[in-house]
């Protein structure tokens, strides 16, 4: 199997969580001699090359972050440039997000499930998983730890059924958090997580409160 993997994130590749997920996924995919080529739509200058790879290959995987309940605007724009193909081509998706619960990604997944039909190709399923916001802020060791499960999904994909098997569906994790979990996570977000985010912001040079109401004072941004 040879797979064309397209990173559908608008974020530059260097900071792309999706890119880091793809790298681990591709390790699993290539364990038994399968091959792949990867592209990223964040650089418009490469769109002709990506489109050409899409046209010439039959096994396509688009990996993308969820943007406001669906696909990012930039990916929509790229998709509009693709020609119609036929059912010999299979199009699968890897959808990831910051929010951790599976329910947060279902609206985006529903769009992706219908998209192949509009492009004239077959649907190969959608791997859905959240809780990935922090990847790019973690050190390498922790990045490996958090992305490691995607390697097994690469192996699964290599077995030929896309993401249509039960194992891929279970990969999402909890659809909703239980009430005790919500209480614990909610408390964390009021305390530890807030401090952690403030620390990340400070490391980026931010000195303003993260909940600053910029426009209520009508002062513009002065920090």
């Amino acid at each position: 199997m040879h797979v064309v993997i397209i990173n559908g994130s608008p974020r530059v590749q260097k900071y792309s969580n999706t890119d880091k997920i793809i790298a681990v996924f591709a390790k699993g995919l290539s364990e038994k001699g399968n091959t792949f080529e990867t592209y990223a739509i964040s650089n418009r200058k490469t769109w002709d090359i990506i489109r050409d790879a899409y046209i010439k290959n039959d096994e396509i995987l688009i990996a993308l972050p969820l943007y406001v309940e669906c696909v990012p605007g930039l990916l929509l724009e790229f998709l509009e440039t693709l020609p119609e193909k036929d059912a010999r081509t299979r199009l699968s998706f890897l959808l990831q997000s910051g929010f951790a619960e599976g329910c947060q990604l279902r609206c985006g997944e529903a769009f992706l499930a219908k998209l192949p039909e509009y492009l004239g190709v077959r649907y190969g399923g959608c791997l859905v998983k959240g809780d990935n916001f922090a990847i790019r802020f973690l050190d390498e060791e922790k990045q490996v730890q958090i992305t490691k499960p995607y390697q097994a999904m690469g192996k699964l994909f290599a077995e030929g059924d896309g993401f249509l098997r039960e194992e891929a569906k279970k990969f999402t994790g909890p659809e909703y958090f239980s009430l005790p979990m919500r209480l614990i996570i909610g408390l964390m977000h009021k305390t530890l997580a807030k401090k952690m985010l403030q620390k990340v912001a400070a490391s980026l040079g931010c000195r303003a409160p993260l909940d600053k109401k910029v426009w209520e004072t009508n002062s513009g941004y002065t920090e």
Partner: protein
Amino acid sequence: MVLMIDTTTNHIGKVISGELLRIGKNATGFELIDTTGMHISHCVGCNYCWLKTPGVCAIQDDYEPILRKINKADQVWLISDTRFGFVSWQTKNIVDRILPLATMYLKFKDGQMRHVMRYNHQPDFGIIYTGDGDQAYLERWCQRTALNFERRSLGVFSESRGKEAVSCML
């Protein structure tokens, strides 16, 4: 205040606003923004609006004045062409860049995680579309989008049902 953001190639927002005026909506009660000729980039996912310059988008183009109006509006109507049954990428770019209105802080609301809003006031959202839109999907997406802002969907209307949409703006 009703805000209409029109990205359609046929500028159907003009027809909608004409109908609004015809049935008696005061011209000060609504605003139509036609994005033709504006430079509005896609969201690049830099997260600066959450973590580096909270509340302010790093991209300096024609979008910020629109976002300020979204922030003040009671209703935001996305007037969009459709592709793949969904809104156009031009409209999706406008929605993707709404993130400065939310903060990076998280909380649970009705059993699901949500961003804590930056401001106290949020608008409801509606869609008026041209072409072969997937009505059921657009309704689902509009509801989910509004939910993120702890608001409600005003409904989704094809161009031919524009008058129904207008009745929701009064």
